[in-house]
């Protein structure tokens, strides 16, 4: 288990409601870290390159770009406000100097291009020295005169043409929206996931999943492969607008919703989606244009001894993530994290209890709505460890090989810069030892829902309400 130290602290405690961080995501190289907040803003951090001059700034993340991604909207037809809160950010793999990411609020997804400018052109001779635009005809003039019959005189007056020169300037990072994918979701978007072909991506709301092509914004797609194995993608919007649609004909029959979805990291036709009943369905887009029949169905049988009225609620899956290898997937429900082997549908291969001590508090947590909190989870780069958040600004890490786990806290008071994070422990009963916290003292307003792990190194980002904490492995 790596030992983590804080690298970056939030500059100051911010209490604005709009500053609540709602999503955190590293890009493919780990150089950039994007966060979205409740106010519709995206803040991107960039890792400082390690340099000999400043060894102490080894790997710090500093603000690289900030922009307003979504604005609040009002749906006049339904008389409802559409929140600008960013639900998810997903990076695209870098193909040129610019970076691209998808950001989604409840209803709209936007593709943003983030590009750098560190030079500007100077010396355009379109203006006089005093700034007036020059008459373009004076720049180069070709006068033709007919002085004699059959004789043409040419007078060429050419002003010296100056070629503009690129001068260095302060680095400017610009974000511009390149695509806007709108009007495709009646319900709230909970997930977006980029496909491994890097051309398509899916977006999921409570009842439907859309497949998009990154270049085409006015429609979403189904993919139908021809009868033979030669893929002949026909993009048909009108017949089958969604690749998954679980909306019942009669809404009163609705008992289950989609909670998360993700594309397989390597097989571009495979994706999974999880439900509020604790089930996961793996779908193959080659099988049908409408993936209403899953290829695989993952569900763990319920333990009858622990059944209560809250069993279904706590089994609702809040996040699903494939491992980097593509062999496993991880699901987060209210009290635990489960690792599934894609080849075994009847039970998970590993189960980790995140905060089992809350099981006796479920009624209170139901009453204050905390039981509906949607925690996310993430893998480390090598798939040997997983991380998820909890209450009281605690977050938990589990080492899959050694089966050891650790609880850490993301708070300014309890961690000093460069000092190793101290493991925390919750006292579940009996005598409380020193440094332990009793369950009743936990602050349920301080919840860590969003965490991210660097794809290659032991660097983690933890969002604690308004503040982003970045921790790094001390041994690095």
């Amino acid at each position, binding site marked *: 288990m790596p030992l983590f130290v804080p690298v970056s602290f939030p500059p100051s405690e911010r209490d604005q409601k709009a500053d609540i961080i709602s999503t955190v995501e590293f890009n493919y190289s780990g150089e950039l870290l994007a966060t979205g907040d409740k106010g519709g803003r995206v803040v991107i951090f960039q890792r400082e390159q390690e340099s000999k001059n400043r060894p102490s700034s080894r790997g710090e993340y500093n603000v690289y770009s900030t922009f307003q991604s979504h604005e609040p909207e009002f749906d006049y037809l339904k008389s409802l*406000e559409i929140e600008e809160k960013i639900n998810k950010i997903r990076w695209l793999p870098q193909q040129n100097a610019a970076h691209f990411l998808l950001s989604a609020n409840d209803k709209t997804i936007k593709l943003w291009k983030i590009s750098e400018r560190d030079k500007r052109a100077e010396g355009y001779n379109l203006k006089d020295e005093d700034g007036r635009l020059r008459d373009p005809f004076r720049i180069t003039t070709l006068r033709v005169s007919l002085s004699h019959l059959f004789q043409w005189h040419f007078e060429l007056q050419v002003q010296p043409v100056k070629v503009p020169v690129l001068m260095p300037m302060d680095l400017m990072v610009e974000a511009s929206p390149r695509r806007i994918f709108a009007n495709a979701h*009646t319900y709230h978007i909970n997930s977006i996931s980029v496909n491994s072909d890097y051309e398509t991506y899916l977006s999921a709301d*409570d009842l439907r999943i859309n497949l998009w092509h990154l270049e085409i914004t006015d*429609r979403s797609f189904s993919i139908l492969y021809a009868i033979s194995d030669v893929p002949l993608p026909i993009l048909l919007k009108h017949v089958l607008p969604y690749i998954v649609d679980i909306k019942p004909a009669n809404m009163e029959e609705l008992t289950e919703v989609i909670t998360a979805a993700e594309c397989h990291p390597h097989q571009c036709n495979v994706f999974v989606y999880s439900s509020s009943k604790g089930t996961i369905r793996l779908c193959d887009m080659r099988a049908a244009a409408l993936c*209403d029949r899953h290829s695989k169905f993952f569900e763990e049988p319920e333990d009858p001894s622990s059944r209560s*009225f*809250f069993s279904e609620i706590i089994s609702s899956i809040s996040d699903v993530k494939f491992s980097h290898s593509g062999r496993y997937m991880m699901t987060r429900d209210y009290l635990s994290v489960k690792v599934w082997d894609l080849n075994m549908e009847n039970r998970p291969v590993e189960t980790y209890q995140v905060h089992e001590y809350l099981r006796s508090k479920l009624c209170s947590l139901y*009453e204050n709505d905390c039981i509906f909190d949607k925690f996310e989870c993430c893998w480390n780069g090598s798939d040997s460890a997983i991380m998820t958040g909890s209450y009281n600004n605690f977050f938990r890490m589990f080492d899959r090989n050694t089966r050891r786990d650790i609880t850490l806290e993301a708070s300014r008071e309890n961690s000093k810069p460069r000092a190793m994070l101290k493991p925390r422990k919750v006292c579940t009963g009996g005598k409380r030892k020193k440094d332990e916290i009793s369950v009743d003292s936990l602050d349920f307003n301080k919840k860590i829902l969003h965490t991210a792990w660097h794809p290659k190194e032991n660097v983690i980002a933890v969002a604690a309400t308004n503040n982003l904490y970045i921790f790094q492995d001390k041994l690095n």
Partner: protein
Amino acid sequence: MKISFPGFRTRSCGTLLLTECSAGVRNVGCSFSCSGCVSACTLVSFSTVLGCHPCFRLNMFSKGTKRKFSDGDEELSDESLVGARVASSYSLQRQSLLDMSLIKLQLCHMLVEPNLCRSVLIANTVRQIQEEMTHDGSWHMVTEAFCGTGQSPSERLVATEVLCRSREQDAEPKLFSVISYEGCREEEVVADETLCSVSVSETVSNVCLAGRIGQCWEKSELSDVERDEEALEDSRLGSGEDEEIDTEDGASTEGPKTIGQVFGTFEIKNGSPGPDSALEELFSDVDTSYYDLDTMLTGMQSAPKMGPYDLLDSLAPSHSSPSIVSPPNCRSDLNELDHIMEIIVGS
């Protein structure tokens, strides 16, 4: 035998807080202090939400319990005493959970756009509780526990009383027996002491379903017309309400709205064969034209789209009607699709 019900604890006296978590937790109900000791706490603060004085109610309940057990224990064995107390405690807690869930579903009406997942989970919990209550016949136990003391119905637990009970009760317990809107009005919760003046019936199933469960998550699809209708109902009901409400939103007008939506416009249902059909009967007044609205809205996305596959558009049979299709339609479309594919591939 001890039934553990997660999350409930008893407090000896003093300020009664709804949750046992740290002080940072938001309480839906309010905290209040009781003059005497209380021996059992359940989610009584929801009575506050519903406009009653729970403190008084709770004292009566606890004193009554004590009286009962102290007076009558020479006749009852210890085991059955404990069993009866535990069983009735479980039922009360279950009832309180049911009430809490119904209130949550009501509150989701007030939100800008309700979280569909949360609404579905709460509704499923409500269904689960009600199914268990039917199978248990548990109302028998509850009435037995109280009947012996000679307590008047008005002194019963607030949670059960706020939900109007049907006057015309049948012999067998009914899951969704509700009374009509007009009849309910006289029994609505007013002021402090007297709640619904109900008669104790032998078999009770006084669950007044918040029938708008289905509508809760249709809210995003409701047009303004529907909401105006509801507002009209609420304003009619809301006159005599004592509003001691301390909900999350802090809006004092939510009390009457809550009651209004709990009662709704239901008719008495008799002889319902089972929970599901009763559920559907209750929702039968739902205007299904909104489903069409939804399909229309989503279909609207596809209508103006023109693309390189217009030929296929014209060939596809269901193109004219925007389609959020049920599976049978999909399959026939897929057959058409196969046919089209064959044409294209030129086989």
